[in-house]
């Protein structure tokens, strides 16, 4: 009983990570219309072939489609015919005047709602300036789906959110723990605090490398045009957050070199504790200040070092926060184990 009371958080870490991994690999991406052909419409009757992703259209299913602008449905799709799982054919009759030449496509079935912004262009229509010149229809959406959002350009890579972002959260927390124990060491000169600080840096570096690897793969397939795995370009971009990550990694690799270049145990502990505190504070300054001065490819920028408010939807939140907590707990657990191994090694050395 005592064991469970003391070690409940390890069980929590396992549960959270199993939940995260299961969710992020098993839940499907929401259905979405990804392309239309032809892309541009003429005034009058048009026949379009729409291609979707994960849509799974059924023969004889009721499907509703409309073209809209600023949430105002303008043209309803007619004679909808299912060609295959991911393909349908729709007829649109375009009027002479519309409020915009670029239109969004909305598609509803009883199973899902899908929205494709700025998918359809109608260059030949005239721009209507006031609402009396066109008719707004009614188009209701009802289905409520539980799935991972299918975002433009991100596609399936959005699942990486549950692995890439928590790595940095976990790394910062673990490096913070390391600095806390370095301060404790300088106040007490007790070598056991130095062991924790050292092992926390090692685990923090592991998380940093994992974050760099997952981020690099993500960047390659979303920010880069070179999605071929066997070319060297696209794995790294010049972005303020990537620079922050690189600097953090460099600082803590330097910390390890500093430790290994000192001989005496107490001097090693003292000098590296001083460097740890000094470097950590300046790194925090870097992470807080520089993103406010420059723009970044990462979400939530132009003044904000963290997330934008609207980058996560409720389904993602349900996994993202547990994922962050799970990875942090796993990291703390790893530091704990490494500390115990070091303690055993030290005692064995003395004997």
């Amino acid at each position, binding site marked *: 009983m005592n064991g469970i009371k003391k070690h409940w958080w390890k069980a929590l870490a396992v549960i959270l990570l199993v939940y995260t991994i299961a969710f992020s690999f098993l839940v499907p991406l929401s259905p979405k219309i990804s392309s239309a052909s032809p892309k541009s419409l003429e005034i009058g009757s048009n026949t379009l072939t729409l291609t979707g992703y994960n849509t799974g259209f059924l023969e004889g299913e009721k499907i509703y489609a409309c073209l809209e602008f600023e949430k105002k449905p303008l043209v309803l799709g007619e004679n909808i015919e299912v060609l295959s799982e991911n393909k349908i054919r729709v007829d649109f009759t375009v009027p002479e005047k519309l409020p915009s030449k670029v239109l969004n496509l909305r598609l509803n079935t009883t199973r899902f709602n899908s929205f494709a912004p700025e998918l359809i262009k109608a260059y030949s229509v005239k721009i209507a300036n006031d609402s009396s010149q066109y008719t707004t229809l009614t188009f209701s959406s009802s289905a409520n789906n539980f799935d991972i959002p299918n975002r433009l350009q991100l596609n399936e890579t959005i699942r990486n959110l549950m692995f890439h972002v928590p790595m940095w959260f976990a790394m910062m927390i673990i490096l913070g723990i390391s600095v806390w124990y370095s301060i404790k060491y*300088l106040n007490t000169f007790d070598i056991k605090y130095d062991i924790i600080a050292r092992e926390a840096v090692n685990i923090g570096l592991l998380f940093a490398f994992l974050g760099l690897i997952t981020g690099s793969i993500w960047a390659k397939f979303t920010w880069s045009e070179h999605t071929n795995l066997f070319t060297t370009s696209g794995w790294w971009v010049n972005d303020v957050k990537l620079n922050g990550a690189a600097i953090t990694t*460099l600082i803590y690799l330097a910390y390890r070199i500093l430790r290994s*270049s000192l001989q005496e145990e107490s001097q090693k502990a003292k000098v590296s504790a*001083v460097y740890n505190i000094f470097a950590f504070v300046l790194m925090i*300054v870097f992470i807080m200040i520089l993103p406010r001065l420059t723009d970044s490819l990462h979400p939530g920028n132009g003044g904000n070092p963290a997330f934008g408010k609207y980058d996560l939807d409720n389904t993602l939140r349900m996994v993202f926060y547990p994922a962050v907590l799970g990875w942090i707990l796993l990291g703390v657990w790893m530091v704990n184990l490494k500390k115990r191994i070091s303690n055993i090694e030290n005692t064995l050395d003395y004997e």
Partner: protein
Amino acid sequence: MFVKNLFHLVKHEFSLEMKQKHFISSIVLYIVSTIFVCSLSFTSISETTIWNALFWIIILFSLTNAISKSFLNENSDKQLFLYTIINPRVLILSKILYNLVLSILLVLLSFFIFNFFIQSDGLSDINYNLFLLAVLLGSMSLSSTLTMVSAIASKTNNNIGILSILAFPILIPSLLLSIQFSNLAINGGTADMAGQFIVFLSLINLLIIILSFLLFPYLWRE
């Protein structure tokens, strides 16, 4: 007492420097030859951002070289003597102060030589006052960081190599800020456009000095 000791130590550093003239002249020669090599490889740089980046990289390396020696002169006898009579915080402040003056002189010198040897067409609308402010604030934060890190590195045998790998990653924030700041000055920016750079760089300076002030006694104690 504190201030008196501080000035005494700074004066001591200066007189030490004057006794060993070979050191300061080697740094000056280092700067001149680096800039000369750059001028031979570039002759003229049309892009002002490259001109600026090259200037800051030269400053970074020459300051690293100059400041790497600041804790090397201390042999263990002298260290023991100083340890018994003064507060370590006075010592680190005096070192920072001395290196500050030294690096400002060196940076002004390198700006003069650099401007002399390497021309750039885009420099016509440079705001000299603002550029000098950027250079001063930037070299201040470089020199104070380098002083503290060289104190850390002096505990190891491989001083200059360790100094660069320890210092460069933590110098990047102030270096990037300085580069952006001086870029603004080169493009004819005014003082009110540079407000955030001045504030951030001064804050970083202050932070580094406070951190060194707090942490140095632990390093000093054997």
